[in-house]
């Protein structure tokens, strides 16, 4: 498949994954330092999914994500400054600091959150797609959610609506095998998630979520089918989170050995090696990319540090819209 990507695209995937990884590693540090607070959910280990999937979308398409969405925002094109300032809670953040880590919004990027109710984004994505269909716009809405969300009733309801009305939704399930501390097989009797999608009339496929090219290929195909008017698609990206669920989680529910095993399949080094093997990447390239990312991060942190807080007098602004004239 690297054959189908030109060099810039192929290296771009690596850059995306690395940017997410470094952003999140830094975020964890900043959390320990008390700069980022509340809930912080890291995506480390799952980067291939956002990196490989979101590039299949055009700027007109829409993205709905969860509380574990720094990677999605970044790949979608959000500036690191806007993300970092949001995690700091500063007025220059993408959501003016009000949302924090879990609620990254950017209307211009058509990123509709950052939803922290498990499953809460699913029907919203269906509605966004319905709006597109009713207005005859050839857009796709990609909705990201976890394996845990597939147990919520709203998952089935949303897939049914999308299939019944043949709406352009990509249901992008990030199956990292756990919902907080509950392993998928302890949460669901039937663990083949594709069956659940098909039972609602949504064509479904599973893909190796640790392989960024497999992700890209499967997502390209699904998005093409959806954009072609074929109705919704479900993709199960099989992945794993290397870190705790959130910064509070003592990880009592899985063994170090299991985590270690999955770390062997870290999507970044594997892909990086394959690019080198294919002659598309040198060690110098990697250094340059890392340096660029580090500089961007430093800049973003400085920006966040120096940014102002939203004045408390503005607390009630935007509870309601200004009244139309």
């Amino acid at each position, binding site marked *: 498949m690297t054959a189908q990507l030109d060099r810039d695209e192929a290296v771009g995937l690596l850059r995306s994954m690395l940017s997410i990884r470094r952003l999140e590693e830094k975020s964890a540090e900043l959390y320990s330092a008390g700069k980022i607070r509340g809930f912080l959910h890291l995506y480390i280990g799952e980067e291939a999914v956002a990196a490989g999937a979101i590039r299949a979308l055009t700027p007109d398409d*829409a993205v709905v994500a969860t509380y574990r969405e720094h990677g999605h925002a970044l790949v979608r094109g959000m500036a690191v400054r806007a993300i970092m300032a949001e995690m700091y809670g500063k007025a220059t953040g993408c959501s003016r*600091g*009000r949302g924090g880590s879990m609620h990254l919004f950017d209307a211009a990027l058509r990123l509709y959150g950052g939803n922290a109710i498990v499953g809460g984004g699913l029907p919203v994505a269906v509605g966004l797609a319905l*709006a597109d269909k009713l*207005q005859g716009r050839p857009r796709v809405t990609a909705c990201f959610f976890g394996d845990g969300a597939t147990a919520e009733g709203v998952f089935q309801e949303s897939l049914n609506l999308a299939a019944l009305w043949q709406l352009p939704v990509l249901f992008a399930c990030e199956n990292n095998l756990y919902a907080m501390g509950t392993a998928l097989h302890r949460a669901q009797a039937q663990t083949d998630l594709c069956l659940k999608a098909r039972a609602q009339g949504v064509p479904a496929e599973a893909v190796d979520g640790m392989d960024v090219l497999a992700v890209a290929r499967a997502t390209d195909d699904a998005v093409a089918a959806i954009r072609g008017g074929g109705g919704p698609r479900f993709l199960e990206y099989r992945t794993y989170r290397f870190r705790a669920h959130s910064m509070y989680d003592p990880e009592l529910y899985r063994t170090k050995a299991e985590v270690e095993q999955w770390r062997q399949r870290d999507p970044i080094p594997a892909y990086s090696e394959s690019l080198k093997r294919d002659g598309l990447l040198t060690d110098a390239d990697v250094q340059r990319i890392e340096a660029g990312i580090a500089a961007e991060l430093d800049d973003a942190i400085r920006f966040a540090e120096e940014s102002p807080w939203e004045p408390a007098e503005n607390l009630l602004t935007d509870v309601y819209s200004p009244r139309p004239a």
Partner: protein
Amino acid sequence: MTAAPATRTTYREAIRTALREALASDPRVFLMGEDVGCYGGTYAASKGLLEEFGPERVRDAPLSELAFTGAGVGAALGGMRPIVEIMTVNFSLLALDQILNNAATLRHMSGGQVSVPLVIRMATGAGRQVAAQHSHSLEGWYAHIPGIRVVAPATIEDARWMLAAALRELDPVLIFEHATLYGVEGDLPPGPGRVDLDRAAVRRPGTEVSLVTYGGMLGRTLEAADRLAGEGVSAEVVDLRTLRPLDDATIMGSVRKTHRAVIVDEGWRSGSLSAEIMARVMEQAFYELDAPVARVCSAEVPIPYPRHLEEATVPQADAIAAAARSLVKPRG
């Protein structure tokens, strides 16, 4: 404007006319809910609209209150002006997560980037003997949620015009239609009618006691005022119209005039909207009061099926008149 004659119509027909007008005048509007199309609407409010506007715009939804309400949120984000119909307020609990955690919240939480111009209509209230899972009045709950507006058309005129006003808002508006009103007949003054969602209305002026109510209770509150008039007690009847935000000015204006008030609310007494109104009168007009504000609410019970028990549960004109009387002419 020359004074055109009023039209004889029903509350149901007024809602249907409003829906038809909305669909005809704005291509972004569509109606979505269970049985709004083929069935003609549970209360026949949307009868004929499927034939007129087609299944894309009069959209029958499966039994999935949570998802289709959430789809309304998404469609609103996507530039449409959805009207979601939930059959009955008891079922709306299934959709409450989307209403509170998304519809009401997204604008503020996103730093003002997005808005959710969504209208949700639903039937509320008792009076049809449909028992404890179909009869409650929970609009007071919704009036607690920042980020949404809540209205309750009590008259044919409001049934006719509130929808258009709701569709002009950029934020979610919930419209509560009392299930016993659909069949009510009356005169509809020629339009376009009063269209704001901000002000309460004095439905009957009076001087000695304010009866503050809304929705399905307006009729029997007016009836109580009639009886009181027969006894020489002049009651003013205030129809809240908008339950969130409350129109404090009109409420307090009435209380400052009469110095006494009875709140009539079909919600279960404890924690009903009546309590909020009493709290505000306490805060804003305490020194104007000649007597404590009283309230007539529903008994705190899952509403039973037989007529006599249903009637014993919800406020009746007798009880309203009695409460008013006891403030104006205290015993002893």
